[in-house]
Structure formats: structure tokens, C-alpha cells
């Protein structure tokens, strides 16, 4: 599903964020990218989501060469992804419902179908009762669940999650991992960047460790 082939990323100034990293993620697989801060986990996710381009190497997603994709194709590529951010990226001038419905608006769902899908997604993450609330009234764990609802509402083939359990207590972290595992079980491919592989042990994912931008194990 995702192939990373000898991918390197060098930032202006000469710092190497990734060096010759190669691995594949099969359809329906959950893979953890672990390592210390600055290991290149987030950079790798950003390259897969075509937020940045690799300096060298090839990234293929579902047969498409992401690293050589033209700018016009990138929005359509990103519609195949569900993105979960450590900082949630929720819009605080919108309700929970309005936040979750955004990917469906982008892809042109009718209002009725979108409402139905948003409620189903919020139900899955246990926040249906909070659909009218503003995200600022939610706890950190609840915000992360809203973020996950937004990531899955359009039923993407691939979930990219950057530190989804960061800053959460053990209970909330466990709930998030359980949610991600449910999506994996229904066929989603999940790539997670985390410094806390222990929190994901219940889902028994494959773990890839990076150190200073290089593949370790």
C-alpha cells in the first residue's frame, strides 16, 4: 500500500532529516514509526502526505509515485488519507460537527449524507452527544477523538497519525489506540509516528525505529 524506497530529506542548511530510509506498509497493516525527537518520524509522515517532497528516493502510495506528483494531483491524493495531528488542528470558531464535516465538504458530499456520516463517525469515537459543542470546551482526549473522527469520516484507505497519544493520560491513550485498531481491523492502513510505542502494545503493530533520520530496526 505504501512503499518508501531509499528516501532522504535534507533541509536548507544541510540538516539531514531522513537518510536512505526504505520500508513498505501492507494494506490493512498498522506500522509504528518510533524514535527520539528529531529522528525523522514526523518528516516521514509529511513526505507520505505530500506536504513536503523528498530530496531523494521514491514514495509510492497505492501505486502512485507521490514524490513526483504534480501540485494539481496532490489534493486528490490527500483525499485518500485521514490525518491525525498531535495538535489536533481543530477550528475553534466551529462546532465539533462543523470540524468533522470538513473533509466531506471538500469531497462534495450532499448535506444529508455528510450529516449522516459525521454522526456515525462521532458515534464511533463516543462524542455524538457533543456534536454542537465548541472544541475549546472539550478535554485533550476528547479533542483528539474529534480529530480522529474527522480523519475517518470520509472512510480513507490510509490513516496517518502524528503522536496521536501525545499529551494524553494512560486511559485516553488506550482509548485512542483501541479506536485506531478498530479501523485497522476494517481494512484501513495505519502509519503512526510516536515516541511511545508502549502505548500501542495492545494493537501489536509492526514497529520501525528511526534514529537521526536513519532506519535502525
Amino acid at each position, binding site marked *: 500500500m505504501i512503499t518508501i524506497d531509499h528516501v532522504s530529506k535534507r533541509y536548507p542548511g544541510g540538516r539531514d532529516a531522513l537518510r536512505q530510509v526504505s520500508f513498505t506498509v501492507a494494506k490493512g497493516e498498522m506500522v509504528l514509526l518510533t524514535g527520539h525527537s528529531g529522528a525523522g518520524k514526523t518528516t516521514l509522515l509529511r513526505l507520505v*502526505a505530500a*506536504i513536503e517532497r523528498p530530496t531523494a528516493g521514491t514514495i509510492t502510495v497505492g501505486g502512485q509515485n507521490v514524490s513526483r506528483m504534480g501540485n494539481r494531483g496532490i*489534493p*486528490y*491524493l*490527500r*483525499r485518500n*488519507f485521514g*490525518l491525525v495531528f498531535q495538535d489536533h*488542528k481543530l*477550528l475553534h470558531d466551529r462546532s465539533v460537527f462543523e470540524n468533522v464535516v*470538513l*473533509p466531506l*465538504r*471538500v*469531497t*462534495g458530499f*450532499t448535506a444529508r449524507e455528510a450529516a449522516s456520516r459525521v454522526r456515525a463517525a462521532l458515534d464511533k469515537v463516543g462524542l455524538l452527544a457533543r456534536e454542537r459543542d465548541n472544541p475549546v470546551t472539550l478535554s485533550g482526549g476528547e479533542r483528539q477523538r474529534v480529530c480522529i473522527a*474527522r480523519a475517518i469520516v470520509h472512510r480513507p484507505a490510509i490513516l496517518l497519525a502524528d503522536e496521536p497519544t501525545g499529551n494524553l493520560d494512560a486511559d485516553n491513550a488506550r482509548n485512542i489506540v483501541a479506536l485506531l485498531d478498530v479501523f485497522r481491523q476494517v481494512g484501513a492502513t495505519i502509519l503512526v509516528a510516536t515516541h511511545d510505542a508502549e502505548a500501542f502494545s495492545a494493537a501489536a503493530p509492526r514497529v520501525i525505529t528511526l534514529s537521526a533520520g536513519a532506519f535502525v530496526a
Partner: protein
Amino acid sequence: MTRWLANHARALRDALDRLRHPLIPTALSVIVIGSALALPLLLHLAARNLATLSGQLDAEPQLTLFLDTNATETETEAVARLLARHPAASTVRFVTRAEALADLRTSAGLGGSVDDLGRNPLPDAFVVTGREGDPTGLETLRDEAASWRKVEHAQLDALWARKLAATVRVGRVAALLLASLLGIALTAVTFNTIRLQILGRRDEIELSKLIGATDAFIRRPFLYFGLLLGAGGGLAGLGMVALAVATLNRQLSGALLLLGGVGGFSGPAISDAAAVVGVAAGLGWFGAALSVGRHLRRFEPS
């Protein structure tokens, strides 16, 4: 097609929401645009009304030579010959004192008073029109004719009407120039308003890009916003002009009646109003397109 229409309908709704929230800055922008449009529109209307006025008046300059009441037929013929030879005279019409009296009796409604005079006090006269494209010719002729034998008085009429017509032409050009300048101002106002909108929605734009929104999808509500802002400004401008015209007519109704029976200062026609709103909406759209094109590129997801 349905999806395309739904996308546009959603963008339009979004733009309407952005106009309403927050309302006060939007209202201020609309007033600024309206004022910018009202100024050239008022000038255009003033020029049009003056043109109508000058059209109702006899704008063709005429020189009237009044002869001495004691002038003999031979002396009158001598003046006629001088006029016929003069290069500034295009047409010459002789009005006898009897014809002048009859005209006074009928057209001015002074029949009773004229009859009371007992005799005809009016002189014979020549009415001369000048040649096209020679505005100063009649003035020269007037100066010369004043010294001719048996010419009592030379009077040049309607020159002021010609000057008025020239003023109207200048006014129209000024209105066009002002409209062009203020059109640029309207575009600049929309450009800046959209810039502020984009800055205020930076998070939303970045997120939208991350979840697969195309540039067209992000750009569309801003374009509709510019279009609606311009159209709103156009309507506001029309409202201001209508108010100004009504006030002007109330204040100047007496004076306008004196000027050739003009009933009042006419406001913009429906075609004028449609043009103002259409052009304002177009400029709003253009300003928005410039602004979005320039500022949206800077917001890449981080």
C-alpha cells in the same frame, strides 16, 4: 453537474456568512465602496441632466441686429447686403417690425398690452446664425455690425448654452476619469478586505489543503465574497445617489423650474443602476481574485 452546482451554492452560502459575521467591518467596506461609486455616478447624472437642459434650450448661437426704427428700405437693404457677404454668417433671416409685433402678441400673451400702445415700438431686425465650427465668427460680426449705419443694437444670444454644452462634455469626461480612478480604489478595498479575510482564516485554509481541498475550492468563497461586497457597494452607492437626488430636487425645485421648464434632477435609469451594480460586482470579483491569487500561495500546510 449537480455536485458542481452544490459546490458553488455552498461557496455562496459561505460568502454570505462571511459578510454577516462580522457585520460592522463589512458594512464599513460597503459604505466606502458605495461612496466611491456614488461620486462619479453623481457627476455623470449632473452631466446628463445639464445635457438635457441644454438640449431643451436653443443652443445654436444667434446674432440679432436691431435696426433703427427710422431706417429706410434702402438702408435696410444695405445692411442685408453686408450680411450676405460676411464670411461668419451662415443664414440670415429678416424679421419685420410687424412680424415681431405679431410674434410678441401671440407667443408672449401680451396682446392686450400691445394693443394699448397704439403704435409698433419694435424695430426691424436681422437674425443671423453662424457657420459650424466657427464659434468666434459671430462675435466678430457683432463687433463689426455695431458700427454699421442704422444698426441700433447687436445682440449675441445662446452663447452661454453652447458653453454649457461644452461644460457637459467636460463633465462627462471627468466622470469617466473619476469612475476609472475610483474603480481602482474599489478593487484595492476588496483586495485588502480579502487579504484580511485570508489572514483571519489561515488555520482553516491550511487545514483545508491538508484534507484535500483544491485551490479552486478554497478560492471560491473568497471570490463570491468579493462579488457580493462589490454588488453591495454598488447598491449602497445607488442608495446614496437616490438620496442625494431627492434632496437636491427638494431644495432646488424652484430654481430648476426657472431653467427652461426643467421638472427636476433625474436619478439613475434602470440601465445605469444595473451597470453600476454589475461593474461594482465585477471589480469586487477582480479584486478578490487578485488578492486570493497573491496570498493563498503563501499558506502551505505546516
